[in-house]
């Protein structure tokens, strides 16, 4: 569309009376989209091949003998296209009527209700009353294995699921069996989708309620869910996702399109691991005092006392333990505080690693990475060293016996015992859950999970990605960057960060790898770090 584009690379056509210039080779469906005109479609999906079989995207092209499927008809110079002509509308209404001939219309008990394309299209321009008097054919439902349940009666036979498994997962476990109106989607073997690692995506791309998630089955209505832009926290790929929440609980994770990271997809491992965000029994208020002397406190008193202890400790040896689940903002502030409080000996973190990677063959930049935490790369860039084994255990011997200042952020110390930090002059524990190993902590400060705060992670591609707050934290929890940043500001006499954007800005200032990035610039789609790092 830009004027500097060479003329041969674009075509200009008219759609519904509006002229539009689009790149050569673009389909009419996308050209219409560029004008803000949505042409209904089922079988077409931007991440898959286009079989042009659902026949609902038919549009009138002047000069063509019959209606053309807009998903596979390429835009041409001078073409005059009508998506809303009487003929096109009549045909769409006809196709919609056909879709409802056997559709059970069980919207009240269908999980897709509210985000169903059949519902939307019929509501928009379907017939007011059906003419079908004949009984509907009944297939019932079929457990496809894995997390997927198939309701054959709701199926519109768009075959997106079959094509996803064939073309993207390259794991042809689904097929169409039978033909005509007896056609259904089915698996080849008893095992079905068991063990497939990307099959959850077929639930997302199903335009109706034919494929539903067993995990989500009857759990919430689509219109009751809040959607929050986020980043999958379950491996270092950092697939862009939406947190779907209701009643302050994460109900499911859905991929959010980002062609640079995950396309339209995410893996089943990432998708399935969200219950830890809803885990009850959180730390809710600050506590001060070691062992049996621990007493509940509030932020004002706790932070004041901690500031005084840190100021006293000036010049001491400092060790910090971070986490690859913590944001860059938290880790950046932790490192800066460690350096400010004394002589920083080491910043370490531990993280689980899988035995191998699991790439998505048809979209190879999406890989379920070995690192099963979202910010392994960010931690590395911010000066933290990975310690411990592939189970995320061990490696804290030096920290456990450290006799100076010890600050632990986001690591639950699950493998450590009550002697951890016993020798520390000052032991500060910032976490989401209490831990036996936090018994010797002088300060136990409750912080938010990534779902309860704003911040950024750096994924395995060296890409900074923002996540937003989808849940309210329990009690008086605060983001770790706010707690650490406040202490740092008190020690240095600088400004205290009041937003994640402030915290991010101070990382950009202190770490060359983040050079040139801005909070707004990272935006929803993320931004690559300086080439020097990547």
């Amino acid at each position: 569309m830009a004027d500097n584009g060479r003329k041969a690379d674009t075509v200009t056509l008219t759609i519904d009376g509006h002229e539009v210039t689009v790149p050569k080779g673009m389909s009419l469906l996308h050209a219409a989209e560029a004008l803000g005109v949505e042409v209904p479609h089922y079988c077409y999906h931007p991440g898959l091949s286009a079989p042009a079989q659902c026949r609902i995207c038919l549009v009138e092209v002047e000069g063509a003998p019959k209606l053309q499927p807009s998903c596979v008809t390429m835009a041409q110079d001078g073409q005059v296209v009508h998506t809303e002509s009487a003929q096109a509308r009549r045909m769409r209404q006809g196709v919609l009527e056909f879709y409802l001939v056997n559709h059970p219309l069980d919207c009240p008990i269908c999980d897709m209700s509210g985000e169903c394309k059949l519902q939307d299209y019929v509501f928009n321009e379907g017939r007011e009353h059906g003419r079908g008097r004949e009984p509907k054919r009944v297939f019932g439902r079929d457990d496809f294995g894995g997390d997927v349940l198939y309701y054959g009666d709701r199926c519109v036979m768009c075959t997106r699921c079959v094509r996803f498994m064939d073309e993207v997962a390259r794991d042809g476990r689904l097929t169409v069996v039978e033909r005509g109106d007896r056609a259904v989607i089915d698996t080849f073997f008893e095992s079905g989708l068991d063990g497939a690692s990307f099959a959850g995506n077929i639930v997302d791309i199903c335009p109706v309620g034919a494929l539903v998630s067993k995990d989500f089955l009857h759990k919430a209505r689509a219109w009751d869910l809040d959607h929050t832009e986020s980043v999958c926290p379950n491996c270092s790929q950092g697939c862009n996702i939406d947190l779907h929440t209701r009643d302050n609980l994460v109900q499911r994770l859905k991929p959010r399109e980002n062609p640079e990271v995950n396309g339209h997809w995410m893996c089943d491992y990432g998708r399935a691991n969200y219950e830890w965000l809803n885990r009850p029994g959180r730390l809710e208020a600050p506590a001060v005092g070691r062992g049996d002397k621990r007493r509940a406190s509030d932020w004002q008193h706790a932070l004041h006392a901690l500031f005084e202890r840190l100021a006293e400790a000036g010049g001491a040896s400092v060790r910090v333990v971070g986490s690859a689940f913590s944001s860059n903002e938290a880790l950046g502030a932790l490192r800066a505080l460690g350096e400010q409080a004394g002589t920083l000996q080491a910043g370490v973190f531990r993280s689980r690693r899988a035995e191998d990677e699991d790439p998505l063959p048809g979209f190879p930049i999406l890989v379920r990475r070995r690192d099963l935490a979202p910010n392994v790369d960010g931690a590395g860039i911010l000066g933290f060293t990975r310690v411990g084994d592939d189970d995320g255990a061990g490696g804290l011997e030096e920290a456990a016996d450290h006799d100076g200042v010890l600050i632990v952020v986001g690591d639950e110390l699950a493998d450590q015992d009550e002697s951890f930090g016993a020798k520390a002059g000052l032991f500060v524990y910032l976490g989401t859950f209490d831990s036996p190993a936090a018994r010797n902590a002088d300060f136990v400060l409750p912080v938010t999970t990534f779902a309860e705060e704003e911040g950024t992670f750096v994924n395995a591609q060296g890409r900074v990605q923002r996540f937003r707050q989808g849940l309210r934290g329990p009690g008086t929890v605060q983001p770790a960057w706010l707690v650490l940043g406040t202490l740092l500001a008190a020690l240095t006499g600088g400004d205290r960060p009041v937003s994640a954007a402030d915290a991010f800005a101070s990382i950009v200032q202190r770490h060359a790898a983040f050079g040139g990035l801005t909070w707004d610039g990272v935006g929803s789609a993320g931004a690559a770090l300086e080439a020097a790092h990547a």
Partner: protein
Amino acid sequence: MAYPYRHEKETRILSECFGDPSARTVAGWKKHGGYKGIARALEIGRDATIEEVKASGLRGRGGAGFPTGLKWSFMPKNTGRPHYLLCNADESEPGTFKDREIIRWTPHQLIEGCLVGCYAIGAAHCYIYLRGEFFETTQILARALEEAYAEGLVGKDIMGSGVDIDITLHVGAGAYICGEETGLMNSLEGRRGEPRIKPPFPAAVGAFGMPTTINNVETLAATPHIARHGGEWYRQWGTDKSPGTKLFCVSGHVNKPGNYEFPLGFPMMELIEDVCGGMRDGKALKAVIPGGSSVPIMSAEDCRTCTLCYEGVEAAGSMLGCASVIVMDENTDIVKQVRRMAYFYTHESCGQCTPCREGTAWATRILRRIEDGLGTEDDLDTLIQISEQMTGTTICVLSDSLAMPIISSIEKFREDYLALIRRGERVGAA
């Protein structure tokens, strides 16, 4: 006279040897001028062969009537990629039984046609896609092909010309939709028999992704005669727009059903009354389906002046299709006939496109209800609207093929429908 019935008015080019098993061997076929067509093609060259076929005006005999020479000329040249010729022997249109007879009696006629076609389009390999139910036919053709290979007529360096042409028989599993050209390609490649979206057209991306031409058995069988005698020779028969001779498969309520070969433009009533020995039991003619089950039905009145050529049948409101003339007498239950056909299309729909998948089945259920006396007049309007929604909205023309008979039967035989509806009303069924 024993089967196959013959008639003195026939012009037998393709069917000369029908009923004569001796023509099934290479030697027997050569006695009738066999393999002279491919010999002349090899002599005059590739382009000249296409020109002869173009000059003959031969139109595809599979139903669409597309000019064969023109189709061949669409094949790209010097692509460096393999080209394929596919012979569509998946004869599955209800009422059609001409290709089977050509292969049964004169397998070498088809083999020679395949050679001419392959040579003309620069293909080194031809696949003959045979209908799954053609057991005897397949055996006869396989035997003939084996002999042709042994005689050096097929394979490497055919007839010492330096040209290599292989022919492979592929037996389908008996699905109607695999007779649609792109459905056939998918089936041949081992995929589901589902028609492909066009473009790309087969001449650009066909079987195995390569440039491909696909022709009907009867079309290919005619090409050796044209190659041998020239395009002008072929034009001595038929009309200007429909040159040559054609096999007419007559079935239904006539005394002598069968395959008859006539120049195109032969009068329909003469075919029924004279050639086929008139209506069975002296009954009156009620309706004719002139081109296989998927074309509009004709009333007796439509047939009076109809001539059997592409333009003649079109003028009478139907289509010549593959010239499968189904004759129905006054006792025929048109609704039942249409319902049975609708059931066929429901059963054979591949299920890809929504209008066809849902429309054929829905129409069948409504027709069944009308047949059972439970219909209403509104149902007829619904049927017509469903049929309109099934026309021109799908990848292939299977749903159009049901829409046309439904619409035409309601237009022409509305009284038959209404009689059933009223009968139902009388007994209080509806």
